[in-house]
């Protein structure tokens, strides 16, 4: 018995002894204290920063800036779950998702780059000097890109350049936009030297280059009316000699145009690994798409005729057959429908995915009647014949109530490769390209009052490509001569031309909202704006039914409300929607409510 009592403490000690080991560390994640200390680690760290090269919070998983155009005068969307949706309704407020999504994205990217930049000194002795410097510069440019987005969207923002503690984050104040701008300039300037002009290895395609830093500087300078900086940066980038116009405007945005020499910065996708649903979102109804966004009549009207004149001026423009004799970029960017009078095809629609694009609802009804003529439907536009087949199928561009509501679809970034895989697209999205740079050069020079031949050359280089001789695999002649050259050196005239050029060349690429903002046209162009679509029956248009371009290049349709038909019930243009009241203060987004609630030192932008 005594022995057993003596065993008792031993028993307890045994039990207690086995409990020592409570050290458990993550099995799949290294500690941040030792990280950033080898070349592999800093390269991996900068790779992770590239995920912040553009926001990607909108449904199709493409860069979200591509959604911005859908809430302007050039494009409209019926996608009401978009974070941008309250913008066009005029209901945007500090509690809306949009500002929070952009803010969170940018500062997360800034944290990543700051963490790397602060700690990478640990790796310096263990890295190839060139790689070390390149990584540092990539990170700095990426951080600058985040700040560019921030100051454009919010104006003054806190300038964070190091890992921020919680306490610091609760009292930080907004830095003046102009100071952040100077910071961006400095970062871009200092980074350029260590970035290559071009990467040769395939595995490095998509990394930031010297040209990317210059282009970003040119862009943000332009956006902030810093004309001389914009001009010189653009010039320096052009002078690198690395970039040139890609042979085909249409193919530039398809798989054929991936990683070509026009692209300065893009967002890279990869099959199976990172995909987007651009086609499912924007594609036509007949080709596995849901036609969520669609160009407006304003956009279509903005493309010139081949004589270089706007359609209100050009004798080549025929309202009853509107798509002939037009700037080829119209057909490159907008999926154009068939123009016919019910019997004769005047201009066939775009053939995409084997289907001819036909969207006329008007021809569904007997002239002047409101009754649907079921028998004639099957004969006419309600059916469509797929190439290579003989039997006709229902044409959903007409029969589906949720097809493209303006009668147009976007054609940019539409590639028939994506039709069978509408949710698994993997083409890259271009964030900055040479054509934009040329237009920045032109606009900055013009605004700086330095109009010379180089300005006209820049604009004309962009225009020339559009008129090049296209063949199936691209273009052989990008320096076309048979195109309407810009020759005017009158500043007022040139301003109109450059602005229109941006509108048509860069359409649907996420520039329109920023352009409207900086040209002071936001409220004028969007508040209460009525979005029109195609005419449902072009034969009912008169030769005088042409739009008018106001002094700011915005489109007005005097005939839009006119009607025809036996009882005058059909409007001459389709009406899609009316935007809400959009105040000029929408030019800046509200600082997210949550940020202000946590940090009372943050001031709110006016109007919210």
């Amino acid at each position, binding site marked *: 018995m005594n022995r057993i009592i003596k065993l008792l403490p031993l028993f307890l000690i045994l039990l207690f002894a086995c409990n020592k*080991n409570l050290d458990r560390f*993550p099995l799949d994640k290294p*500690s941040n204290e030792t990280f950033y200390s080898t070349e592999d680690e800093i390269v991996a760290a900068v790779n992770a920063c590239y995920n912040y090269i553009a926001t990607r919070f909108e449904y199709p998983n493409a860069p979200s800036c591509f959604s911005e155009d859908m809430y302007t005068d050039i494009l409209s969307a019926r996608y*009401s779950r978009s974070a941008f949706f309250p913008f066009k309704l005029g209901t945007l407020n500090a509690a809306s998702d949009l500002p929070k999504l952009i803010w969170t994205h940018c500062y997360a990217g800034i944290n990543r780059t700051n963490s790397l930049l602060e700690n990478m000194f640990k790796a310096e002795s263990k890295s190839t000097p060139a790689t070390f410097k390149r990584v540092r510069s990539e990170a700095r440019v990426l951080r600058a890109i985040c700040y560019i987005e921030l100051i454009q969207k919010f104006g003054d923002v806190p300038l964070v350049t190091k890992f921020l503690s919680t306490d610091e984050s609760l009292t930080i104040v907004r830095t003046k936009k102009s100071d952040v701008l100077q910071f961006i300039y400095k970062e871009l300037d200092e980074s350029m030297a260590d970035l290559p002009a071009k990467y040769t290895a395939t595995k490095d395609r998509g990394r930031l280059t010297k040209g990317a830093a210059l282009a970003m500087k040119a862009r943000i300078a332009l956006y902030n009316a810093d004309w001389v900086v914009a001009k010189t940066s653009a010039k320096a980038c052009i002078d690198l000699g690395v970039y040139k116009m890609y042979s085909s405007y249409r193919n530039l945005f398809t798989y054929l145009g991936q990683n070509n020499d026009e692209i300065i910065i893009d967002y890279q996708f990869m099959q199976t690994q990172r995909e987007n649903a651009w086609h499912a979102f924007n594609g036509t109804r007949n080709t596995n798409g*849901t036609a969520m966004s669609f160009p407006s009549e304003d956009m279509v009207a903005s493309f010139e005729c081949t004589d270089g004149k706007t359609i209100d001026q050009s004798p080549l423009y025929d309202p009853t057959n509107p798509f002939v004799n037009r700037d080829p970029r119209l057909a490159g960017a907008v999926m154009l429908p068939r123009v016919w009078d019910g019997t004769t095809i005047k201009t066939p629609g775009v053939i995409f995915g084997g289907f001819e694009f036909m969207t006329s609802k008007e021809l569904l009804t007997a002239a002047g009647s409101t009754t649907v003529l079921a028998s004639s439907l099957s004969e006419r536009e309600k059916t469509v014949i797929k190439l290579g087949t003989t039997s006709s199928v229902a044409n959903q561009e007409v029969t589906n109530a949720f097809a493209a509501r303006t009668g147009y679809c976007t054609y940019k970034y539409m590639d028939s490769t994506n039709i069978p895989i509408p949710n698994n697209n993997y083409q890259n999205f271009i964030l900055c390209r040479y054509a934009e740079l040329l237009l920045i050069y032109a606009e900055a020079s013009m605004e700086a009052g330095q109009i010379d031949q180089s300005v006209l050359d820049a604009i004309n280089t962009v225009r020339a490509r559009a008129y090049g001789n296209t063949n199936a695999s691209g273009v052989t002649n990008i320096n076309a001569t048979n195109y309407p050259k810009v020759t005017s050196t009158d500043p007022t005239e040139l301003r109109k031309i450059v602005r229109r050029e941006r509108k048509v060349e860069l359409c649907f690429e996420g520039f329109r909202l920023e352009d409207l903002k900086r040209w002071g046209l936001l409220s004028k162009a969007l508040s209460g704006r009525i979005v029109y679509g195609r005419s449902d029956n072009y034969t009912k248009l008169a030769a005088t039914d042409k739009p008018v371009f106001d002094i700011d290049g915005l489109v007005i349709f005097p005939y839009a409300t006119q009607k025809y038909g036996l009882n005058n019930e059909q409007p001459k243009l389709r009406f899609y929607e009316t935007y809400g009241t959009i105040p000029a203060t929408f030019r800046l987004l509200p600082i997210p409510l*949550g940020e202000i609630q946590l*940090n009372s030192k943050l001031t709110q932008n006016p109007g919210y």
Partner: protein
Amino acid sequence: MVSGVVTGTDQALVGVSVQVKGTKAGTTTDAVGHFSIQVANPANAVLIFSYLDYDAQEVSVLGRNTLNVTLKEISKELQPIVVVGYGTQRKVNLTGSVTTLDTKDLLTRPITQTSQALQGKMSGVTVTQNFGLPGSDGGTIRVRGIGTLGNASPLVLIDGVEGAINDINPNDIENLSVLKDAASASIYGSRAANGVILITTKRGRKSSEPMSVTYNGMVAWQSPTDLPKTVDGATWLVIKNESERNTGRPNLYTQAFIDNYRNNVGTEPNFNTDWFDLVVKKSAPEQLHNLTIRGGSEKMSALVSLSALDQKALIDRSDFRRLSLRFNTNFQATTRLAFSMDGFLSKEDANRPNLNGGISELFRMVTELPNFYPGVWADGTLGEGWNGANPHAVINKGGRQKSVFSRVQLNLRGTYSVFDWLKFEVAYAPKFLSTVADASILAYPYKRIDGSMGTYPAGNNSLASSNNNTTENFYQGLVRFNKSFKKHTTSVLLGAEYLTNRNDNFSATRQNFLFPNYLVLSSGDANFQTNGGGASEWALASYFGRVNYSFDNKYLLEANLRYDGSSRFAPNKRWGMFPSFSAGWRISEEPFFKGIKQVSSLKFRGSWGQLGNQDIGNYPYLGVVSINQPYFFGGNVAQGAAQTTLPNADVTWETTTILNGGVDFGLFNNKITGSFDMYIKNTKDILYKRDIPAIIGLDPSEQNIAEVKNTGWDLQISWRDNSKNFRYGIDAVLSDVQNKVINLNGKPQYGLNVIFEGAEYQAFYGYEAIGIFRSTDDLAKYPRLNTNVKVGDLIYKDQNGDGKIDETNDKKIIGSNVPRYNYGATFNFGFKGWDLSVFFQGVGKKDLYYAARQAAYGGTYYTYQLNRFIFDDPSTVQSSTWPRIAAGTSNDENNSFFLYNAAFLRCKNLTVSYTLSPSLLKRIKLSSLRFYASGTNLFTQDKLAINTIDPEAPSSVNSSNYYPNTKTVSFGLDLRF
């Protein structure tokens, strides 16, 4: 000298006190129940035998030398035993607040998940069930409110080993008790803050009882409770047009089109598909079978329990099957050395349609799809549904989601009784859990309204397979000490535990299966393969002790202490100490109380103690770099690394302090028994991912910042009586808890559910809707959120009267997310062989936020929206009860218009059973036979303004994306050989 053996019902009793009456001489029985005592006057002496839980007995020696005595156990009805931490206790000696479940009716209700059994049955325990999907239809259990901002589920111990409440087959439960206050739960220290549910399982029988074989089986039919009612196709067309006009767009459908539809509805292609009718079955069967074998000998006893559940879902091709086996064995190696070896093996198969968003998404489609869309064509072709997403088609032709969850759980225990009063116990309980899941995506063809064909989803078919394994090892050592000296009874418990847990998982996908009948990974296209995997681990070490002392069975004292260390915290923050003290006074045992005949028993209890919570991520204190942040350059994967979470090195335990006072009573010869408790439960250092400024750029991790207080009371009362052949009884529980966030370190969280200091946890927050703008005068009169607010929109109250409506100043707390006044009452009536049991359950105060109007963005409308404001219909201007229908307007802001009173009373169960009389049984050679019929969720009384949804439906801002609760009717029998 008198000697002999003292036995109980079926075995020798160890430690029985033997005393010579009128003297101080006494002894106790040894390990084989033997005693010997010197008696001065053998002829006249009287010996008193007394033992815990047994009636004391006085035996005259009458000059005998050998005296064998059998003690009679105190009836369990009168002296219930309650399972407490690391042991059992007589209910009368309990000083903490413990509530037990009457396990008798567990088998007559179609309980598929054990958590359902607790609803409305236990005071202070709130069970909410709002998802009826087989396999996922367990309830959410909250013990005494919400004491943490994280996981507030109680700790569940099955035979002393941590488990999940739904891990156990209801048939195996012998005892289930819930430890509600700190005194009873603090022995479980760091995991006990949300309450502890203790379950012990049935065990084998001693040799004195015959071996028994019991079969219990039932078949049941489930049918859905309420889901929202959608409008018919024609109405949808009209409202859709209205919505378009209200958002500045033209009509989508012409009047001619609508007229044509209305005149020809029912003839293709003018569909009027009742999606609910098409997809949700009127009834779905389930069956449950249990077979239990119990038996044993002197040296060994065993129980084997086999259970099978097959539950079909309310949608086709979907079911849940569970097969489980339990064996509990006891070995008596020597009189002092005993072993037990328990095993629990189970396999759960769930089989469902696969779609992004799971089964909730399927029900979202059912409740959001306009009736106008085709479901199935007359020729059997599938209809288009929503751009091809047709729930009926997804179920019948789409991809499948299959998961197999397997469990092997062992519990090995050895007990060595050094003395009668000293026992050592060691246990090792390993647990292996594995889930193997497959999810496929298969396209199906469908026909559109225009007759054209399409396939959905577009793209490659695919298969994702995953495997998730958890291994848990649990070690325990206990020392028990029990001793009584005269009127003093003491017991001491010391113990140590160590728990390690490791999880490993991997997943892989392939696409493009040319032969979709052979859906295994390697038959897919290797060009489309991805894979991933991960692993994590944690550990917990504990030391604990308990002292019980009672004097004269009147004054009761208990103290507990637990010392826990968790791997989840930094080494210097790792250990936490959790003490508790409690006391009880059985006033009815006092001499001065004996005269009060009406009161059969009365006890006052009081307790104070502390509990902890460590249920957070595994490594919140470590700053780590995720090396799974790739980017893709030129079609190549480039590995990326980044820190994504802000670590908090100071993170440590949450501490809950509970002060509890209670009274247990029995009246009129214990015909009426009950207990009442009041408590204050204060949780400090609550681990909470507070909103940090997004400017930091990282996700927050837990910090010990918040403090929450729960104040409440629990009442439990039973009345049992019988007269001749008639038996009746009532068991009722009622409890309330008030929740308040005391301190949040000044950092509130905003949203629909807010966390504000001074307010209830996750209270509903929004504008106060005070009406509808009915005229342009109204527009001028009341401030508007923005200039786009139009006639027909909701008017929000300008709380601060500054003439404008703004987010910061005009939102307020509009409702509560915590149900109050939870109650349940069971009425039992018995007459001869017949028994009737009716069980009502309800909630006295509950708010439901249900703003599924946003479904109307692309979806259908509901009958409750019909009385809406229509701009061009003057008759609606004054009478409308719903605002104008328009997506994206200010009406979509969180506001009180969508808050409903969801208090309800529900007939949770009604059971009629008949037990055959013993005489009849003898003839058919059975020990017992009982038949029963039972109905669950039979009817519900509520005041919901939207009366087509279930009051227990989850609060929602988007859509009714939940599998409805079910109504069940079942028939079964209980058979013992």
